[in-house]
């Protein structure tokens, strides 16, 4: 018989071209699964990145808040310190036992007859030793008493020495109760 048929050729031929059939059967499913897997992975990564980003933002905000708190605190401290300094300075200016002021006043108001031998400073008192005319000394003391009302001025030593009198003048800071 001259007719020859072979079913195997069709099998092997379609086996080579069955890629389309295979794709048709499994392609959609595999692509869908691939999409699901990659999509899940991307969503997970995105979520993770967003969470980390949020955390970083919160941390930065916290740091900024801390810094601002610190800044305010420092500003407050600076203000307080400044006020303290101002108050100290003003207090010092208003202090009746402020030596420089006293000395300025002494030098300005010292009578002509009076000569000072020594000026001694301690924490709470100022001692002047010198000589001069009695009435000028006393007037000088009265003027200073009027000027420095919170300073008690005493003359513990007063003696005549020819025409002039030698003296010791003590400036004492009065207690607060006495001030008020």
């Amino acid at each position, binding site marked *: *018989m*001259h*007719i*020859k*048929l*072979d*079913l*195997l*050729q*069709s*099998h092997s031929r*379609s086996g080579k071209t*069955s890629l389309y*059939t295979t794709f048709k059967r499994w392609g959609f499913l595999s692509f869908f699964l691939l999409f699901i897997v990659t999509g899940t992975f991307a969503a997970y990564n995105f979520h993770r990145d967003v969470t980390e980003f949020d955390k970083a933002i919160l941390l930065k905000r916290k740091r900024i808040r801390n810094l601002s708190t610190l800044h305010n605190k420092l500003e407050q401290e600076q203000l307080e310190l400044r006020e303290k300094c101002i108050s100290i300075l003003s207090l010092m200016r208003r202090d009746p036992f402020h030596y420089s002021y006293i000395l300025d006043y002494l030098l300005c108001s010292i009578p002509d007859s009076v000569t000072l031998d020594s000026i001694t400073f301690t924490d709470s008192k100022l001692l002047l030793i010198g000589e001069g005319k009695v009435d000028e000394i006393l007037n000088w003391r009265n003027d200073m008493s009027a000027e420095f009302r919170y300073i008690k001025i005493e003359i513990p030593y007063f003696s005549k020495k020819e025409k002039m009198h030698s003296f010791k003048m003590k400036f004492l800071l009065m207690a607060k109760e006495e001030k008020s």
Partner: protein
Amino acid sequence: MFVSFFKKKKRKMPLSGLYIGNNWIRYISLGWEGGYLAVQKVCKKTIPRENLLFKTFDDWVTRIKEIKNEMGIPHNSLLNCALPIRETYFETLKFPIMQRNELEKSIRWECQRRLKKKWEDLCFDSYCYKEQEDSSESLLLVALTSRKTVSKFLKILKRCKLGASCLEPPQLALLRGLQGPYQDDYLPLSVFCPKGNNVIKIYISPEGVISSELIDFDEEGLLGDENPYYSFPENPHWFWVSHALKDKKAILKTFSTNMRELPPLQNMWSLDDKGQSIVGYEIALGLALRDFLCTSN
């Protein structure tokens, strides 16, 4: 020398056939002895009892391995193979003359319609008869089988370290064996094969056109009052594939008594059968003779 060294080794075409029948697996191997064709080896094994073909993979592998070992078939040999007749659709279809693309589509549609399966699930081969000049239709011999069955069969063969050189429709192999070496000696020819309670009639016209038909049949004869197959004055030769005498008598009773039964195959082919009966090996013999003309030249 270099040419012969690089020349691709041509594989020797096999003169052996392996037929997976309804109840038996049959193997036949032919060879040349003293200028005559001789049956070298014949073997048959029962198939594993199962409803679906190749359902129990290991059992099938065992059976075919047994045949391979008993027959001494070397590894990676190629065999001409065929699946059971009931698994293979074989018919000559008529189509109006049309363009090639349209004809292909028509064949696909017709095959899918007849077998009620998708085209992708089928293995297909066809032969187009020569058209006569005044003919308005083209005749196409079509063979179809399930792709799944073929795949399973090839897997089994691969496991047995064997190969299939072809997978021929068994009907065609049967006709080749029955037509004899000179092809038109016994034309027209009718072949009757049992298929369940029915009979398949394969017919070759004097022009060589093959047709296959299913006939309702029982022991009393053809069923029905009016039947076109009742007389075959143009069918002088016939062959009954099954060797049940009762059915043979029924066929003779039913069909024309003028029909002449074909001579035994070994006589027809002048085969030296070496005392081995080749009754029942018609299809396997046809498979083995597939490349007979090529090898004899």
